[in-house]
């Protein structure tokens, strides 16, 4: 077993060179390079964490902005609804008013027409009375040779026309 057989001859060389090369490893790699590698990892982790935080903040801001927009939008919508309701009420009122005015005009026209009809009927009836009274007086004077009083004839005719 060379490990034991050569120990006496080589132990100092083994210890010396191991300390030399492990020392180089420790100071060059362990102390020199590893902290830099770990710094890189740490800075990357930090950057990722910062980016995530920024994204989170941006999302929160977007959320709050959306909420604000929503309230504004809701207010606008409510206002629009109010405007529509107002316009509708106004429109309805105007329609009612115009309808009422039209109704009144129509009523007036109807009343006037009825009055005209009544007048016409009355004048027609009076004319018929006069004609009938004249005819009656003429008939009476021709057949019976009587000269009747105009007022009496007219009263009789009126009575007959009414009851006839």
């Amino acid at each position: 077993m060379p490990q034991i057989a050569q120990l006496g001859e080589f132990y100092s060389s083994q210890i010396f060179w191991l300390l030399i090369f492990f020392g180089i490893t420790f100071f060059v790699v362990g102390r020199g390079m590893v902290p830099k590698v770990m710094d890189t990892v740490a800075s990357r982790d930090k950057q990722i964490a910062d980016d995530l935080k920024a994204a989170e903040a941006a999302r929160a801001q977007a959320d709050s902005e959306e909420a604000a927009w929503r309230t504004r939008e809701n207010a606008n919508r409510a206002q629009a609804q109010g405007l529509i309701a107002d316009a509708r009420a106004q429109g309805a009122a105007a329609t009612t008013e115009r309808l009422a005015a039209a109704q009144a005009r129509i009523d007036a026209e109807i009343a006037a027409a009825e009055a005209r009809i009544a007048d016409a009927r009355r004048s027609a009836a009076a004319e018929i009375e006069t004609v009938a009274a004249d005819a009656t007086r003429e008939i009476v004077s021709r057949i019976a040779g009587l000269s009747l009083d105009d007022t009496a004839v007219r009263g009789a005719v009126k009575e007959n026309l009414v009851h006839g």
Partner: protein
Amino acid sequence: MVGALSFIGDRDNRVAAEAKLDPMHQFQLEKLAGADWNIAGYNVAFTNSALWMGLATLALIVFVAGGMKRAVVPGRWQMAVETFTGFIDGMLAANVGKAGKKYVPYIFSLFMFILFANFLGLMPLGVLGVHPFTFTSHFSATGVLAVLSFSIVLIVGFAKHGLHFFSLFVPHGTPVAMIPIIFVVELISFLVRPFSLGLRLFVAMMAGHVLLEVLSSFVISGGNAGPALFVIAGLPSFVLMVGICALELLVAGIQAYVFALLTCVYLNDAENLH
């Protein structure tokens, strides 16, 4: 260093070759340079073991440097390096907590150094004539790492808690009469830590490499002995070897992980006591 594959070239010289069929030969240390380099009387020759320590260090530096682009959106390489640092960071966070952050450079170096050493030792470079040396199969190397980890635990423990660190050896709720015995038992189990830490890695790596070497020698010896033996012994050994290779890659990762994880657990004791 000379593995079984080099044996193929020596088929003619069976006698000389059989001397090389030693599964332990791969752990042989060889002086490559500076056989007479001494520091305070201690020889510090540059060996094949030191060479592969250097190669593991180099490979690790290249690997981590490739992940230093510091891009916000990482590429594949950067992602791989960041996965490893994240893995060590997570392991320390889970075992030590917030205070574990400062140990990331050490645990990362420890884990990756052992991992690269283990993997480099398993690379099939023998095909190219370069025979990898797994220095983690030497307790003289793993022991240094274990003592290093244990020293850090001791330094942190005593620096942070002073003599109160000894309360680590008396778990909560121990009856007063039991305290002396429990203290001794806990102290022993604590002192065994560096040995178990270093030996575990060394044994696992050595066992795996010996097994691979023995199986490969079956393949080659079987092939040399004739077609019948090759079919009976050689082929099944080869199939088994492929499976064991996969297993060894797993063990290479697991042992590096266990070493780093146990260091984390011990550091937790030092940081937070119980």
